[in-house]
């Protein structure tokens, strides 16, 4: 287990947060915290071990949307996007 999310960029240059190996609520905190501290970021790719059903209500609340990029058991990749106001 790790306490830190791996933050970098993907092949297309989009910011990418890898939360693999983090204990709950670490992935939630890392992703929502990144969004909160990057108020101008239009999108971010996130990698998780579980389908983040707990994330969707909070994303909706701050006017963000999500698309599944890839999904395998134990490895989910989503693109989170800020919606226009």
């Amino acid at each position, binding site marked *: 287990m790790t306490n830190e999310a791996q933050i970098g960029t993907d092949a297309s240059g989009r910011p990418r947060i890898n939360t693999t190996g983090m204990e709950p609520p670490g992935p939630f905190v890392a992703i929502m915290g990144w969004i909160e501290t990057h108020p101008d970021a239009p999108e971010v790719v996130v990698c998780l071990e579980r389908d983040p059903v707990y994330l969707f209500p909070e994303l909706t609340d701050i006017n963000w949307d999500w698309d599944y990029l890839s999904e395998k*058991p134990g490895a989910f990749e989503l693109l989170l996007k800020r919606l226009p106001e």
Partner: protein
Amino acid sequence: MKKAPKLPGMILMDAQRRLLPPLLPFLFFIVAAVCHAGVWLGVIFVAEDIPSYTGGPGPVLAVLHLLTLGVMIATAIGAAIQLLPVATGLAHKSLLPARLLMWLFLPGVLSLTSGFLDANQFLMSAGALFVTLALMVFLHIVTSMLWRATTLKLAIAHAWISMASLFGLLGLGVALVLDFEFAWLMDHQNTAAQHMILAACGFMGFLAIGFGNILVPMFALSQSPSGREGWVSWTFLVAGLVGVLAGLNFQLNALILIAAVVGLIGAALHIKTMFWCLQNGMRKKLGLSFVLIKGAWGMMLLSIALGAALVLDLLGDQGPALFGFVLLFGWLLTYIKGMLQRIVPFLAAMNMSKRNHKPPRLSELAAGLPLKLHALCHALAIVLGAASIAVDQSVGLQAAGVIGFIGAASFVWFCFSVLQSYFSYHRTAAQD
């Protein structure tokens, strides 16, 4: 908006295995909200008997169990059966036990509280049987998940103590009910005190603190607090609980006092870690729910201090009732209501994010007014209720009951408005 996953079966299977049919946990939350109103209504009618209450069947015991079973344990069941799978990433092996739980628990609570109200031995025994069976099923659901969990060690350790306490309190509860008929216990009041400590501090207290270790950092967007401090707090709390039970069992007041101080240190350490989360979290505006939660933390410390004062015989004739009120209404009920107002819309929204239809915002799920009204009335009712018990004023306690009832009715309004949004979302989504 979300596109349909490329392998929809895989994603939805994973999510749905962990998300129960939403009405299952919601039923327990609705029961809790309605019983909450019933409890305050009960306080109005038994206000004269509460300050001097020290035990035994009758309306006060009925109201007490409507609170502990109908509100607290119903909330614990609703939260645990849904949040544990989400937090641990483990699925329920089968939904049958969770469904069975509902059918055993509700008639059990009804029968037991009616039995206490009328001092009817048959209803008390039948209720105790149903409630015990229901909570054994609950114990099975939770422990089967705790066995398999490989993460969240601190929260899981709290949950184990909670489940061990549940096992103990059920055994003592059955013994107490049978004692009304057979008079076989050597000291009924002492056993009742151990039953209450196991229920309030062991079962509910450890569950609340364990969930707090996950939910508070999540709501505040904070890193998890220091694991070392968390484990020190857990150790002190376990030592405090064991010490109080041993002290009661062997009637050693000095041991109870030492255990209370140890428990107080453990509780203070836990609160310190929670405040660290709030101070270091990225989200500072946590709303009304955290006003209640912070108040509840204060009441947790106060209740332990009052417990120690009770042992020292400093609280007079109203001591047992005052201690019980601050512990159950001040600490646990306030904490539960603070958490529930976050969890109920959150769980509803989680179940509104699966279709190709935009879910409403959390803030749009329910009106804000009922929560404001509830918080104001709840705080007033707790302060007025505790003060009235302390000075043995039943009129003040009746007023607290009326105010508390208005607050509880507002909370029912809040829960139904969330449900209304939930059904309206699914109706609209089905039409699109």
